[in-house]
């Protein structure tokens, strides 16, 4: 057993209000420079929708992620064999038009326009060329289903949805959507790292954060094509790719990443998971129907003495093991089993998990009344006439397996029913307890899920392990001296050319 630690994340989709505060927090810190205007390390998409870059989930177009060929795991588009052909022209590279052309407005016209009878206007100009542009896309162009016949209809996840359900999704009185905030998943089997010809990308051993060495990146663009989530971005000005760094300078000083810290809906959780690195490849090669359980099996119980022993042997710091024992992620993913990785069929083993949204699922009514049901079976009944088809959610989170999605939704519903019986009292407790049983959970667990969902404190949501970066410098420098110094990395200005 080769135990490693990974800073992992859970996003609770039922709580996301789609405010984009996370995106703005990130942008203000990391991507407000020239060449990065179009990048959103954190973006929030409306689902159903085509997302950013548009239709990123359509891997027949972008060829991101891994595929199993025989007994081998190989990159879909940018493996070693194809390095020569891809390096001169990468046929699967998204271009700026797949994201959007960043723009600003010519504000000076408001002041400089000659006096006249019309109000002066500030026309949009491209941040790349400086020329006037006709804005045709933006980072959240289809926000809240705007233009859904064009955008939402092309969502690749709708392929398993029946024609009838599709029609219903378009029906105005049944319109439904939820938000899907996305950052880099800091995968265990990152396609971006594997594809980089220069070896500029790497995964940090201690915390699993995936980074791009700016001095080694040579603009071969492989990572942009290889990441199936499209979470590495090419800086067209500096000729370097950039990506989410999970705010490691913040984590190293014990603060949650900016998007986590600022999240208005408090949907975000962060903590350490211990996993067995020897098993990564075997798990990533599993047949699609085994991937969800496989990835769960990869995660080790931080309270198991054998695991603790092995973790010590593998060099995991005592304080990190202790942090893993308090990790909310472990509870969500492994104990409660209600958080699922997105599109695990891409086989990168993403370490950002989602609690699927229940709200739009339940937004159905009988006789124009929202029914909660008076017996346990009836409580789960709405799943079959949901607004968001289960097959849609299953395509996002369980490789199309509806039974697995039902399991999670049932549990979430049972917890809700139980708390409603307890606090409102309009559902008989016996019914609620029956629902808990049918949903494979207990009163105690339901209470824990409820507390972690509705009432967690800052410290419970973000269990940040000590990063021990002092160990990186103690060979050359006294960490106590270093502590008084300011700043990190990036000694060269991010300019273009000499």
């Amino acid at each position, binding site marked *: 057993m080769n135990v490693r630690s990974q800073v992992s994340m859970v996003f609770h989709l039922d709580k996301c209000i789609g405010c984009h505060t996370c995106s703005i927090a990130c942008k203000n810190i990391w991507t407000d420079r020239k060449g990065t205007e179009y990048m959103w390390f954190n973006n929030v998409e409306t689902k159903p929708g085509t997302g950013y870059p548009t239709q990123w989930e359509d891997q027949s177009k972008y060829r991101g992620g891994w595929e199993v060929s025989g007994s081998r795991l190989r990159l879909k588009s940018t493996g070693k064999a194809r390095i020569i052909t891809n390096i001169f022209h990468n046929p699967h590279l998204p*271009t700026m038009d797949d994201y959007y052309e960043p723009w600003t407005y010519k504000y000076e016209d408001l002041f400089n326009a000659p006096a006249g009878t019309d109000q002066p206007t500030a026309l949009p100009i491209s941040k790349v060329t400086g020329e006037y542009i006709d804005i045709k896309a933006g980072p959240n162009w289809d926000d809240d289903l705007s233009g859904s016949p064009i955008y939402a209809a092309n969502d690749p996840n709708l392929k398993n949805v029946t024609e009838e359900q599709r029609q219903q999704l378009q029906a105005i009185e049944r319109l439904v959507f939820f938000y899907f905030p996305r950052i880099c998943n800091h995968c265990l089997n990152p396609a971006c790292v594997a594809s*980089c010809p220069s070896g500029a990308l790497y995964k940090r051993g201690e915390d699993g954060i995936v980074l791009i060495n700016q001095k080694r990146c040579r603009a071969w663009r492989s990572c942009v094509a290889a990441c199936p989530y499209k979470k590495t971005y090419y800086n067209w000005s500096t000729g370097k790719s950039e990506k989410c760094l999970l705010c490691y300078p913040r984590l190293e000083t014990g603060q949650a990443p900016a998007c986590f810290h600022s999240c208005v809906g408090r949907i975000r959780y962060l903590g350490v998971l211990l996993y067995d690195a020897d098993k990564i490849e075997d798990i990533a090669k599993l047949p699609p129907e085994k991937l969800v359980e496989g990835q769960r099996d990869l995660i080790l119980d931080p309270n198991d003495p054998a695991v603790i022993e092995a973790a010590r042997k593998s060099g995991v710091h005592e304080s990190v093991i202790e942090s893993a024992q308090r990790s909310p992620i472990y509870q969500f993913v492994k104990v409660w089993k209600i958080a699922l990785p997105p599109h695990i069929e891409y086989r990168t083993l993403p370490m950002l998990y989602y609690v699927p949204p229940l709200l739009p699922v339940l937004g159905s009514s009988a006789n124009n009344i929202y029914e909660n049901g008076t017996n346990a079976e009836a409580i789960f009944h709405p799943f079959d006439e949901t607004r968001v088809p289960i097959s849609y959610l299953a395509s996002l989170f369980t490789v199309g397996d509806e039974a697995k999605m039902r399991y999670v939704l049932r549990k979430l519903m049972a917890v809700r029913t139980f708390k409603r019986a307890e606090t409102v009292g309009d559902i008989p407790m016996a019914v609620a307890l029956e629902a808990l049983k049918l949903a494979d959970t207990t009163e105690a667990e339901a209470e824990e899920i409820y507390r972690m969902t509705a009432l967690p404190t800052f410290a419970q949501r973000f269990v940040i392990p000590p990063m021990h970066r002092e160990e990186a410098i103690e060979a050359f420098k006294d960490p106590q001296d270093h502590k008084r110094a300011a700043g990190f990395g990036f000694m060269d200005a991010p300019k273009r050319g*000499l």
Partner: protein
Amino acid sequence: MNSLLQAETGGLPINDVLFVVTPYVVLALFFTMTIWRYVKEKFSYSSYSSQFLENSYQFWGSVPWHYGILSLLAGHLIAFALPRELLWWNSVPARLYIIELSALIFAVVTLIGLVNLIIRRAIDSRIRAVTSKMDVIILLLLLAQVGTGIWVALTARWGSSWFAAVVTPYLYSLFTFSPDASAVVNLPWSIKLHILGAYLIFAVFPFTRLVHVLVVPNHYLWRRTQVVMWNKRKAQGAEQ
């Protein structure tokens, strides 16, 4: 050596400056500046790909250009490194024709790629926005170089043979620090221009995006698939 002695006695003939002094100055500049840039300005080592900004025309520029120029450079390198073998190969006319013809085809492919790259850079406003002075200079130099190359191929026949017989000894003389340009100075101007063009390109090379040639990712082919870096432990490949 002869020509150098001559230079000492009778002032500096222009040919010696061009074909003896220049290459050494260029080489010194090339090495010091690429190393300086690698050490001090490592961030600037990049191919500055613009495929992200313009995808379709890029294919018709970048692909023929790269395959073409790499084949041509390989041809020059073979003539330099294996002159005897090349002359032996060329001793049968049919084989000589094959080499000459394929060289010409590669040259035309290179030219097409380069012209496409230049046109693309001129007409696409996004690409213009990321075009520096050095980009323009190096593109024009390369165009001139490919142009003189094709001119040489068309006018001074059987270049693969006379290169091995005349230019290779000259280059050897430079590398062994006993420069002898006597054979080269009598070559036609087309060839001399081509040689001088090469020196000029080497001289500006460290200041242009061409430096990406020096960091081609050959290492990728044998490195482990995943890269994991540790705080204390040395970088190690992961499980693949």
